[in-house]
């Protein structure tokens, strides 16, 4: 479904990704881990098409099509979803209004009839249960005055409404207490099925206790330096990132000097 080949990208003139390659198949969950500043969030934003990030070389195929030449909204309508690390506030626009607009854009794209506010309300009510979201949050402005946990739940609610083929969750666990982490993770697990794929970007292993990945990749200095199964995450938890760093720098001295 997703094929990233030797991807290089920069932001504000600084090279961040230096040759990332990754293949994600339908039904798989991949975790991208790594120390701070290794390029995890950059990878997530490049996939979604953030205008501040410039791809300098490499390619990304999504369902066989060149993802990089599509506008962010085209990627989204095509089934790419990014759960933001820092969800943005949109004052004066109700959550329900925003979600319906987004949902109907997708339906239009698929050639389906748009839902009116009443029909959508029913759908929203049903999906909100997935993340135990309070109905009161639907009539409030998008993310405005939401707690950290509510914002993250709202991201997963959007995922539940839009049902993407590929969901990239950028540090969805950050800033969550243990109860919120459980609710969010259970929500993601309910949305996980054989036809979609999930990429979890996370610094900590604890999220992976709840959402168990099929593959774990360690990103360091803009490259994937190690891949493995879920046991790799446990090893990282135990030993920290230092041994990976040492290993990576022994094998690739050029990365260390850059």
């Amino acid at each position, binding site marked *: 479904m997703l094929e990233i080949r030797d991807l290089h990208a920069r932001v504000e003139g600084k090279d961040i990704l230096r040759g990332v390659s990754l293949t994600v198949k339908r039904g798989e969950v991949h975790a991208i881990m790594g120390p701070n500043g290794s390029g995890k969030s950059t990878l997530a934003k490049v996939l979604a098409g953030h205008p501040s990030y410039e791809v300098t070389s490499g390619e990304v195929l999504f369902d066989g099509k060149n993802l990089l030449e599509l506008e*962010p909204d085209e990627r*989204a309508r095509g089934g790419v979803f990014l759960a933001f690390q820092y969800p943005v*506030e949109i004052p*004066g626009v109700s959550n329900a209004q925003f979600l319906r607009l*987004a949902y109907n*854009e997708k339906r239009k794209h698929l050639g389906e009839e748009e839902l009116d506010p009443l029909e959508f309300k029913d759908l929203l009510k049903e999906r909100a249960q997935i993340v135990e979201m309070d109905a009161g949050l639907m009539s409030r402005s998008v993310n405005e005055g939401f707690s950290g946990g509510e914002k993250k739940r709202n991201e997963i609610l959007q995922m539940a409404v839009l049902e993407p083929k590929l969901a990239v969750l950028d540090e969805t666990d950050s800033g969550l207490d243990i109860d919120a982490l459980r609710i969010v993770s259970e929500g993601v697990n309910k949305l996980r099925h054989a036809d979609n794929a999930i990429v979890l970007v996370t610094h900590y292993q604890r999220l992976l206790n709840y959402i168990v990945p099929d593959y774990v990749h360690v990103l360091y200095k803009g490259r994937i330096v190690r891949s493995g199964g879920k046991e790799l995450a446990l090893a990282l938890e135990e030993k920290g990132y230092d041994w990976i760093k040492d290993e990576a720098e022994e094998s690739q001295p050029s990365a260390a000097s850059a």
Partner: protein
Amino acid sequence: MSSIELLTNKEYKYGFVTDIESDMIPRGLSEETIRLISEKKNEPEFMLDFRLKAYRNWLKMEEPQRWPNITYPKVDYQDIIYYSAPKQKPTLASMDEVDPELIKTFEKLGIPLTEQKQLANVAVDAVFDSVSVATTYKEKLKKHGVIFCSFSEAVHEYPELIKKYLGTVVPTNDNYFAALNSAVFTDGSFVFIPKGVRCPMELSTYFRINNSESGQFERTLIIAEENSHVSYLEGCTAPKFDKNQLHAAVVELVALDDAEIKYSTVQNWYAGDEEGKGGIYNFVTKRGACRGRNSKISWTQVETGSAITWKYPSCILQGDNSIGEFYSVALTNHAQQADTGTKMIHIGKNTRSNIVSKGISAGKSNNSYRGLVKVLAGAEGARNYTQCDSLLIGDKCGANTFPYIEVSNNTAKVEHEATTSRISEEQLFYLRQRGISQEDAVSLIINGFCKDVFRELPMEFAVEAQRLLGMKLEGSVG
């Protein structure tokens, strides 16, 4: 970081000119001009006196070019035609006698005037250049005791009411443009809601400037007697001309005990081209007097047009417990300039005022909020809340807030909050990541920003206002 570039102005769709024969007087302004206007309108003596007094005041006054945050070349007041009226029969027995060209013009503007097509539940007074050409539902309203007619007609039919109220809210020497208007105004609307009547439909005036050489100086007077209620709407457009045209209107509102007046404006005068050539100078004085106890006056404005807007719809809160409200969206794009806001003068006890101002600046435009909250010594328990928000699109535009607060009573509570924000790349990216197009994303953010004002507008107007803002900012973002 890619910057948000200015969204280009969509073609102004009301920019057409109606080809119609006009009765005009020579350009220029003098006592002679004023006598001529008064004579053409066959006015009683008291009106001529009112005009001449205003003119003599005007001659002694100075154009307010220094304090507002606007710049424009000096207006040549001798180069304006002060009276231009489409030629038609002096009195019309019915709508069928209105020149078909005029009916067609207003139809094109979305204001059908003929009996068969009239808007349901909205009575319209259509003003074309210097005169009112038609007023719909006049008879139906009369049955409820409501008077809704052109100002000229009111001068003849209800001279006592005119004498009693004209110039009592905005005196002839109030300011430069109000004095000019008082001297040369040619028409406008008159509304009278008698005691205890709730006006059964929305009243509306549609202003159209057609002649490239004439200014428009109209006068609106609305009187709501004890315990009455009226909602009034105003709309305006003009053709595209390279030359600037002056629009200097005066609106006076009077609310007696327990009366309520709701006044809404969607202003879409021609704004000039991208370089700032042409467009209307909108120099307008609007003021309401809450004379009675528990009276209420509400101004809601959506200002999207005009090369320059200079306008401060205000409330004089004289009656105890009276309420003044001002809800405003002012959008400037390209080279437009706006200096707009309100004045709330608290005189009576427990008077309350609420100000919500939303300024949106794009292009290289300049958008200023200027507001005065004044609490006089006798205004025990007065309260004001002011919220001023500015939204910037791009980095070549300007937004300013000039709040003036004068409080002479220590039981008064005055609150002022102001914010300035930009449509951020992050907001746009977030919305686009959910499949919403760039244009829809911008429009969603702007409508969200204006929500507190839009919800004060009558339904049809709110829809129109949202559409208008979207249209004004339509284009591509870089």
